[in-house]
C-alpha cells in the first residue's frame, strides 16, 4: 500500500455500527428488551425525552452518582466549618459582645449553603463526567435521520465494538425488531 493510498484509507470514515428507528415508545421498549436479552452491551437507545421503563428494558444499573454527590456535599460542609473556625477563631479571633470565639450555631447558615453549593456542582459536573459529555463528535450523528432523536423519533444504535457484534447477523437481528430499515453509521 502506497503512502497516498494509506492516507485515503485513514481519511475515509470508519464503520461505527448500526442504527434502527422506531416511531413509538412501545415498539422501542420491546426492541430494547430483545437487544438486552440477545446479550449486547455496547448499544444505546436514543429518545427525545426519558422514557418510563427504559432503564429496566435496557438493563441499566442505577448510577453511582449519588455517592459522589454525598462526597461533594460533605466536602462543602467540612470546608465551611474549617474555614469559619480558621478565620474567626484561629487566624484573627474577634471579641464580639463577649461571645465565645467559636460557636457552631453561628456557623450553621454558611455550612448549609456551602453543602448545597458543593453538592450541586458535583451533581452537574458528575453527571456530565459519567456521561462523558461534552462529546461533540459521535457516530450516531452521521445519520441524517438521527436529527429526529431530539424531536419525535426513537432509535437504537449498536456499536461495532460490541463483542457480540457481527456485521451480518446483527443487521438481520436488528431488522427483525419491528423498526425501520437498518442503517450503517460511520465515524
Amino acid at each position, binding site marked *: 500500500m502506497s503512502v497516498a493510498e494509506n492516507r485515503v484509507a485513514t481519511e475515509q470514515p470508519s464503520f461505527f455500527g448500526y442504527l434502527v428507528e422506531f416511531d413509538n415508545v412501545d415498539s422501542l421498549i420491546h426492541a430494547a428488551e430483545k437487544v438486552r436479552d440477545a446479550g449486547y452491551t455496547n448499544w444505546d437507545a*436514543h429518545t*427525545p425525552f426519558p422514557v418510563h421503563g427504559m432503564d429496566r428494558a435496557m438493563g441499566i444499573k442505577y448510577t453511582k452518582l449519588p455517592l459522589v454527590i454525598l462526597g461533594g456535599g460533605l466536602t462543602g460542609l467540612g470546608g465551611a466549618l474549617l474555614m*469559619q473556625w480558621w478565620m474567626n477563631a484561629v487566624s484573627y479571633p474577634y471579641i464580639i459582645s463577649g461571645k465565645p470565639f467559636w460557636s457552631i450555631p453561628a456557623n450553621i447558615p454558611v455550612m448549609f449553603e456551602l453543602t448545597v*453549593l458543593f453538592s450541586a456542582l458535583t451533581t452537574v459536573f458528575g453527571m456530565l463526567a459519567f*456521561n462523558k459529555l461534552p462529546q461533540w463528535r459521535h457516530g450516531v450523528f452521521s445519520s441524517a435521520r438521527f436529527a429526529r432523536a431530539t*424531536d419525535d423519533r426513537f432509535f437504537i444504535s449498536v456499536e461495532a465494538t460490541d463483542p457480540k457484534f457481527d456485521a451480518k447477523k446483527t443487521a438481520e437481528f436488528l431488522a427483525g425488531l419491528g423498526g425501520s430499515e437498518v442503517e450503517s453509521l460511520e465515524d
Partner: protein
Amino acid sequence: MSENRDVQLELGRTPLVIGGRDFHAVTEMVSSVVERRKWPIGWYIAFTISAGGLGLLGAMIGWLFYKGVGVWGVNNPVGWGYAIINFVFWVGIGHAGTLISAILYLFRQRWRTSINRFAEAMTIFAVICALVFPGIHVGRPWLAWWLFPLPYAQNMWPNFRSPLLWDVFAVGTYFTVSLLFWYVGLIPDIATIRDRATTKIRRVLYGFFALGWRGSHRHWHRYEVAYMILAALATPLVLSVHSVVSFDFATSQLPGWHTTIFPPYFVAGAIFSGFAMVLTLMIPCRTIFGMQDLVTMRHLENMCRILLATGMMVGYAYSIEFFIAWYGGNPYKRFAFINRAFGPYAWGYWTMVSCNVLSPQIFWFRWARRNIVVMFIISIFVNIGMWFERFVIVVSSLSRDFLPAAWAYYRPTWVDIATFVGSFGLFMTLFLLFIRFLPMMAMAEIKGVMPEAHPHHGPDPAERRGTDLGGATLQPAGALGRGREQ
C-alpha cells in the same frame, strides 16, 4: 386519544397539553419561536424600551460612583433606602423559579413542565438585578471584593456572625444553583434546536452548548437522577435564601425588624411575588406566541390558587406582627406598629395591604381565575404591593426608632427612582433576549407528560398487556402520578 380520555376521566382534569398535539407539534411550537427569521415589531419596540432602561441603570450607577451615595435619599436614621428595598424585592421575585422547578417537581406537580423554564430564567435575571444593589450600595465598587471572605483590612477576616455575610453565601449559592438547574434543563432542548438548525452559525453555537447531547438513554438515566437531586438540593435552598435575607433584619435590635416571624413571612412573600411576576410575564408571552395549548387555563388557574394561598399567608403574617406587638408588651415595638399603620408612612402600609391581601381575594371566584385580564391586573397589583412591603418594613421602622430626637422622614431622590426603573430595564432586556434565543418551554419535559410518552399508550392494547415492564408502570394513574421516578 382514547387513553388520553381514560387518564382524563381518572384524574378528572384537563390534560396538560391540549389540542391533540403530538411530539413533533410540541417541538414545532416551541422551536419555531426561536427560529423565526422576522420577529414581530412588538419585540423590537419592547427591546428598545428595555435597553433604554438598562442604559438608564448604567447612567445612574455611573452618576452614583462619580458623586457618591449623597445622590440617594438615604439619611440618618434611614441609612438603608432603595438599595436594600430593591435587593429584597428582586431576590423575592427570584424565588418562584426555583419553587416551580424544584418543589413542584418533588411533589410531582406535573403541570409545572410548561412554565418551569420560563420561571427559572426569570429567577436568574431577577437575582442578577438583586445582586446589582449590594454591589453598588456603598458607592465604592472598587471595594466590592470585601463581600468575599478575604482578609481585607489589616489581615482581619470578615465576621461570620454577621447575617450580611451569610447573605453573600446564600444569594451566591442560590444564583449558582439556579443557573446550573436552568442549564441542565436546557441541554436536551438546545440539542433539539441544534438538530433543526438551518444555518451553520446556529448549528455551531447551539451545538456547542448542547454539549453533544444525543438523547442516549444511558445519559437520560443519570440526567434524571441528577435533576432530581438538584431539585432536592434546591428545595431547602430556596427556603433558606429568603430566611437568611430576613435575618439581615431580624437579628437587629430595631423595633419592627426584631421579630421571629420574619423567616417564614419573608419566604411566603417571596413565593407570592415570584408567582405574580411569572403571571405578569407569562400572560402576554402566551398570547403573543400562541402557546395556549401548552400553557393552558389549568396552568394559569393553578398559579392563581397559589397567589391566593400565599397572599393569605402574607396577610396572616401582617396580622400576627400586630398581635405580637400588642401581646409582647414592649412599648417601642407597640409604637413601631401603630406608627406603621397610622404614622407618616401609612399610605405605604395601606397600599401594601390592599394590593397583597385584598386584591388576590378575587381568586376565590372561578371566573376570575380563568380570566386573563383579571389575572394580569392582579399580578401587577401584587408586584406593586410586594415592593411596598419591603418599603414599609425598611423605611417605617428606621425612620422612627427609640429616640424622637433622631427621627427623620425619608424621601427617595430622582436617582433612587431612576435606578429602580433601570433595574427593570436590565431584567426585561435579559428576558427578551432569552425568549428570542432559547426555547422558553421545556420541550423534552412537556413530551414526557403527554399520554403518548408512556409505554402503556400503545397502538395495540392486547399486546401491551402481555409485556413485562416491571408491573408498576402498567397502571395509567399510577404511572402518571409518579412520573419521572427512575
